[in-house]
């Protein structure tokens, strides 16, 4: 039996690692879209984070500084997007696409001397006896700290959007920016902060790829992870926990198909490689279909430029 050669505990552990970059980018983009902005530059901000995080970590020898650098890099790129779309009122879709192309090109330039370099290792978080529990310890309790922080971030975003006043204002801005403006909220300010948060998250996601998952720098190494994150947000109906479930599902299928390839299953490799994308989207479409409920809808002002008329 071929599947017998796959160790479930290792599989789960690998799944969490594979899912984390996408989850980070998706949770950031979720907040951005909840504020009514569609930033298609996720891929560009991710690769920016991957590249800058790598450069900083290699030069300082500290993965923590690397991650901070990645967040700042993603944020810097997102600020460019905020400037274009919020201040100069450019089209969000076009600006986002440009951001992606810009990020890919710029990082190819910046990272030239870093191809083939090995980054400093990010240590595993020592959870003491927890890591020694059979099966569970291997699957859940022997990871680096970023994975746990990411889950905490999902919880924080969920709490922020559902219970905090600032989160309520953010949702209000995304739902109906004219009404929010009429009530005296600063639509552009809220959106700019959301865009910056999204950029930082995407940058962290990219750094997770280059510093932990791969870990190496290669040009264009995000290979579409940003796009999957964007799709996740939509099919997760803009709900944090559902986005996490989608990311883990995606990670799971990625890892499983890699294992199946290694085990020599007689399915053409091409089909296996495309399966994570197909399965994740199919499942999320299935979950979000059939419910014409308000709460599963896109934010009302998504991708609509806001201009205070008078």
């Amino acid at each position, binding site marked *: 039996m071929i599947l017998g050669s796959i160790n479930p505990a290792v599989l789960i552990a690998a799944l969490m690692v594979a899912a984390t970059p996408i989850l980070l980018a998706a949770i950031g983009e979720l907040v951005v879209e909840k504020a009514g902005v569609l930033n298609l530059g996720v891929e560009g901000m991710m690769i920016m984070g991957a590249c800058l995080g790598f450069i900083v970590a290699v030069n300082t020898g500290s993965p923590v500084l690397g991650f901070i650098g990645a967040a700042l890099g993603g944020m810097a790129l997102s600020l460019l997007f905020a400037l274009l779309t919020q201040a100069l009122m450019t089209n969000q879709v076009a600006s986002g696409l440009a951001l992606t192309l810009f990020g890919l090109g710029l990082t190819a330039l910046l990272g030239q001397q870093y191809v083939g370099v090995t980054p400093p290792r990010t240590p595993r978080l020592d959870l003491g006896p927890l890591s020694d529990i059979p099966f569970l310890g291997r699957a859940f309790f022997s990871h680096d700290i970023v994975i746990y922080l990411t889950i905490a971030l999902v919880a924080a975003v969920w709490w922020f959007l559902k219970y905090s*006043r600032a989160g*309520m*204002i953010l*949702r*209000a801005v995304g*739902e*109906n920016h*004219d*009404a*929010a403006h*009429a*009530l*005296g*909220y600063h639509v552009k300010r809220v959106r700019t902060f959301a865009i910056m948060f999204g950029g930082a998250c995407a940058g962290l996601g990219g750094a997770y790829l280059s510093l932990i998952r791969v870990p190496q720098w290669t040009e264009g190494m995000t290979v579409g992870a940003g796009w999957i994150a964007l799709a996740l947000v939509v099919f997760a109906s803009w709900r944090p926990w559902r986005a996490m479930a989608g990311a883990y599902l995606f990670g799971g299928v990625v890892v499983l198909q890699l294992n199946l390839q290694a085990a020599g299953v007689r399915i053409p490799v091409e089909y296996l490689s495309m399966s994570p994308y197909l399965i994740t989207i199919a499942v999320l479409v299935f979950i979000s279909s059939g419910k*014409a*409920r*308000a*709460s599963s*809808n896109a*934010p*009302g002002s998504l991708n609509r430029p806001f201009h205070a008329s*008078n």
Partner: protein
Amino acid sequence: MRQPLLRLEGLTKAYPGVLANDDISFQIGTGQIHALLGENGAGKSTLVKMIFGLVAPDKGQMILRDQPYAPAQPSEARQNGVAMVFQHFSLFDALDVAENVALGMENPPPLRDLAKRIRDVSEEYGLPLDPGRLVGELSAGERQRVEIVRCLLQDPKLLIMDEPTSVLTPQEVEILFRTLRQLSAEGTAILYISHKLEEIRALCDEATILRGGRKVATCDPSEKSARDLAELMVGQVLTPPERPAKPKGEVLLSVENLSLKSNNPFGTSLKEISFQLHAGEVLGIAGVAGNGQDELLLMLSGEIPSPAAQVTLKGQPIGQLGPNARRVRGLVTAPEERLGHAAAPDMSLTANALLSGAKRKTLVQNGFIDWKKTEAFAQSVIRKFDVRTPGSHVLARALSGGNLQKFVIGREIELAPDVIVVNQPTWGVDASAASFIRQALLDLANAGAGVLVISQDLDELIEIADSFAALNEGRLTAVRPAKGLTVEAIGLMMGGAGDMQPAHEAAE
């Protein structure tokens, strides 16, 4: 004389090309219900935006309780006890009632306490509300209650209400007035903006009338007739449309027992709709917004297909036909939303004329557009329907609401249809353009076409309709002759306020 609460002195505000407010002065007393009366574009909205801190005046000053008052933003106005209920509700569909209320408050309590206060206040003023419901699921009347309760929770000294009754049934209006009188008795001043004269005469202590950005008069509305007020407001004498009596012709359009799911999650599905429209008849369909008007129009225009045999035009099944095929057969429609549905905002009037006239006027031949003919068609609409525009090359977006509406309705009438369906033909249109449009629809009916008017303006329907039905939660009442129907009877047909108390009990 009441103690003055807010005094406006020489307020002036100019926008590029328009003087929106020109030297306006008046005062509002404590606990007074003060009407601000004027047509669209008279400057009412600009004036209240200045009072509410959304717009800064160019000149002049405001004095609130003997203190200079110049709010830089709405939160400052709220802190000074000025609250506002907006005309286009400033509500968030995907948020629940309590969250919507919290967003309009300066320092809202935790949501659980707020929910209790919403229940208390809404009951005290006879406006029951369930704090946990999503606003997108509420009726227009309930949505307005959310806005009012949001204001009341802040204990305002001055409550500004911008066209509050345009979306309410007559019974709901009664309830609103009771609430407003109660507030006034408790010392809250109300600035009541409207162009509905009878309402103002029934409710308000004093009225300030604006026309073209200037104050025309301040008077006691109960001492003036509605006609006097109208002439002050419009600045000219209005003639009501003529309607000679005539017998009904044969059945042109017939809908039988049609149920249709709405394609909008916040929409209302149509349920077992049946009616017949005869030649020469004006059928008015009343109803409060959101009771299926949009869906009814989409169903009749062909934008939502229905089972073929259930919609027939002159005996032919047309249920499965799209809008263009229906146009060819003689059924034309003019939807409510002018910019984006009835007309393409960024295209010229000529292009917009082409969009609906292509087939019936054969403006397209062998796949090529005959621009000369199209231009002539657009010009004739502009001429016959008195559309004020520099020419047919102007973008639809650049026209004022009334002019664009005249163009959109005129364009359909010029197609010489057998049946025309219009939704809210005079919404947001000034009084003279409105009476012009009504007359044009009546003329079309007199010429033997069937006219179906969906409207929320009861006065309009009473003025032009021969027969009458009402939409209520997607159901259509039986069609009744309009003659002898009272406003109360119509209110009951519309579902009235019958739901006010039961809705509240059901919520508990």
